[in-house]
């Protein structure tokens, strides 16, 4: 049972959130310029690391804001959360 630090509301139970997968996957600016492989990379390919993972969450039952979080997927230790557009906390990169 994760205790997730929403950058806006503070620490709340996991049940208030929804996980949004890997963070920092940008939608290509010009999809037509991409090969099928590159498009597939954007659509489907994920790092899925064992260790520190930069991921997206949305505080669905709270402030409805999306944010990013750095969490160790091997231990569930949370290194910190940060707003969209901000840089990951130190030690997470």
């Amino acid at each position, binding site marked *: *049972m*994760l*205790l997730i630090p929403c950058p806006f509301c503070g620490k709340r*139970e996991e049940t208030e959130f*929804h996980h*949004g997968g890997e963070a920092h996957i*940008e*939608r*290509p600016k010009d*999809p*037509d310029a*991409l090969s*099928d492989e590159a*498009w597939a990379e*954007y*659509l489907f390919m994920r790092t899925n690391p064992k260790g520190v993972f930069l991921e*997206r969450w*949305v505080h*669905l039952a709270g402030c*409805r*804001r*999306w944010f990013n979080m750095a969490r160790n997927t091997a*231990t*569930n*230790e*949370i290194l910190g959360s940060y707003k*969209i*557009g901000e840089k990951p906390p130190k030690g997470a990169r």
Partner: protein
Amino acid sequence: MAQKNRLTEGGRIDRSKPVNFTFNGHPLQGYAGDTLASALLANGIRVVARSFKYHRPRGIMAAGVEEANALVQLETGDRTLANQQATRIELYEGLSATSINCWPGPNFDLMAINSWFHRLMPAGFYYKTFMWPVAGWKFYEHFIRRAAGLGISPREADPDQYDQMNVHCDVLIVGGGPAGLAAALAAGRSGARVILADEQAQLGGQLLNERCEINGKPALDWVTTAETELADYPDVTILRRTTTFGYYDHNFAGLLETRTAKLTDGGEHTRQRLWHVRAKRVVLATGALERPLIFSDNDRPGVMLANAARSYLTRYGVKVGSRVVVFTNNDDAYRTAIALFEGGVKIACIIDTRSAPDGELPTAALALGIELVDNSTVTGVTGGRGIKSIEVMSLNANADGVTGVPRMIDCDVVASSGGWNPVIHLHSHSGGKAKFDEARGLFIAGETLQASVCIGAANGEFQLDGCLKQGFQAGKKAASLAGLKKSSRRKLPVAETIDETPARILWALPTTKPIGERGKHFLDLQHDVTVADVQLAARDGYKTDEHTKRYTTLGMATDQGKTGNIPGMAVLAQALGVENPGDVGTTTFRPPYTPVTLGAFAGRNVGVLTDPVRMTPMHHWHELSGCTWEDVGQWKRPWYYPQTGETMQDAVNRECLAARNAVAILDASTLGKIDIQGPDAAEFLNRIYTNAWSKLAVGKCRYGLMLREDGMIFDDGVTTRIGENHFLMTTTTGNAATVLGWLEEWLQTEWPDLKVYCNSVTEAWATLSLCGPRARDLLTEFTDDIDLSAEAFPFMALREGTVGGIAARIFRISFTGESSFEVNVPASYGLALWTQLMNAGEKYGITPYGTETMHVLRAEKGYIIVGQETDGTVMPQDLGMDWILSKTKDFLGRRSFARNDSMRADRKQLVGLLPLDKQTVLEEGGQIVAENSTARPLPMIGHVTSSYFSANLERPFALALVTDGRSRMGEQVYIPMKDRNIPAEITSPVFFDPEGERLNG
């Protein structure tokens, strides 16, 4: 012969309160304060159960959670509880318990025949046999299943209630023994919010079983004072009968509280409450469990843990036997000998695996005149249903064999102690490591991933004084780490420290023959796993702890190996020639610490509270009208409104005809509605939807399709431009929340530069959808400020005004293909307007219709339903909806059209299907084949997505997805059912009013 083993005084039972109960039908009596186990022992009952596999007679071996043998079926009928440990059942008036897994009873059990074949049934024997004939397992399995399984499940629904509670605290302390109590006092004094939970009905832990002193007074006095002090702190919560069953990430713990002393019956209360505790700090003061010595035939009724024998005497005033042998490898068991001796029990002797133990406790025991047989072990036990005597021999130099002359000692109880195992279960649940203390042969808590600490016996501190000190220190530190700095200068309690000399750890004790050849050395008493089984596992190649566990089922019973696991792993280590059992390790500790009722996990989410039923403002009108409901997401929607005597088809026909010929009304309030505002709103819609939005005029509506990035259809709906920078989007009922989430996700994470705000207004509006040729006539009666004529108010337009005196928005949009008016009023006026429309509409034949009729009507028009015509693999082109794909802008999902599979010519396409016999309604989900054949396999070319009888067309019809369907118009295909292939013709998917004249009418 009432309670022949009960002492006349002593113990924490109330002799003035006799309690009647029955065991296997025999009426017996105990006292308030007894457990079922102590009462059975008081009454001289020895055989309580039979073992799992060999059906050997078994007695009571412990006094607490570690009991592996004495399982009973408690009560009968709907309140029955299976596999209950007699040691944890507080005795109550009228209790009735029976032995499980034996017939006719524990003293004589027919299945004991199994033990004759025990040689054929070593660990894992079933993997090696039952393979012939090929279909044979089904036959064997039938009998194996009936023989296995312990107690019986209730056969009726549970009459009791369970609930849950979420709480936060600074410090959660698990265990109310001396260490936990001390921690609670220290934390409580610093003003912390404390939860102290103990699984027992009384606090005190091990002190309840001892006669020791704190501050020079009986230790229990200190317990009482501590409880009184704690009760005074408003922020200290003490939970008795509450087991912390699981310890999860980020200091979250699950606790199970049993709310009544009568285990089976919640009465007026909830029977059990499951607590969700989020703690800043956790202190684990869970104590230690004694482990037995593993010797030949150590499962006989009368072999028990040394501290259990002590507990029955001190806590319950029960003599466990008349001649007791204490068998030990450590000093602590001498306490049992002394206590029993002083309580008037004859001690036959103390057998110690060590030579000449000279610690304070052995010295004190010897001073009482108790005989010590040192450097020895029990090599055999005689007596099946109760010990008659034991055989004792000296250990050889390596302690791997015995020497000398066997000596027979008469006795009826062997109280054995192999040392203590700290309870590190919870620590491990949450990802903490275990580390092996080689010197003492036990596992203690290693590194933790949580903000937690193990203290007291759970931390390997076995001295009372040390436990108190660790407790105070841990409580204070936890409070301070949780942010409370207040400190107290009260004097700490002290207890006498009795030095104990080191134990001599021997795992499986030798007998006169190799292990397995004389008697059985049981490790897991509940699953009948022996030392020989573990050795066989190692020999068979199952060499890791986890393999041995699974091959032998060691530790997989309801007690989860609380007494057997550690010796078992040590035996495995020996069998593998590994010197240090720490290198073999322990198998994984998993929640729950002790079993937890399913009902408690479910809590109040049962019955009518299972899951919210979402209701529209008109819900209760529908209910009263006798409609049949369809579940759509959490909503209930009217499916159809049968009148007396009508079948579903009758009702749907009537509703369909009314919609096309008169006027019909649908509650469409469940549709998702999203208010979208901002200067970039149109641009936002351009990206989200496949078609273009910038040029939509204010006051106009447009249909839109949303795709996922993989190009597949995700949702659809009509969006209206309410103002230059203001749109109202509608979504399908089931997807309302998902679509809002989708919009927010793109806005917030990908396009934060777009100036757009989205707000859900689904619930703000009641939507009453009127359709049919008389709809306009009816509505005209209700409004004088909106011109409803087709010219003034065309299809796909919005008007605002009043309807029936209520501020309203009317949309001329249609899902039925009829001239329609979707009237939206503030939700709390929905019912009033609905009622008025029904009254006034009577003369036009107004008919309420449900989702089924809606589906028929839309299908007649070839309109799709997302989730029915689509399944996550369907692109707009497949549905013939290329017209809605903008060629001039990018939108989500567009790039995926250019992938190979998207451009395949033979994709499945939406078509209509007309069954040739004009009678048969095809099965939705029916598969379509090209060939009229009964061969299997038979290649499929598509499937029926929607299928109905149409009263308007006077025939059945269907929609389908068919490979290359659009080029198959007029072809005959077949829909195979169990008994026949139904022929049908492929047609256009639009069956009614293809020109759309009615829409505009």
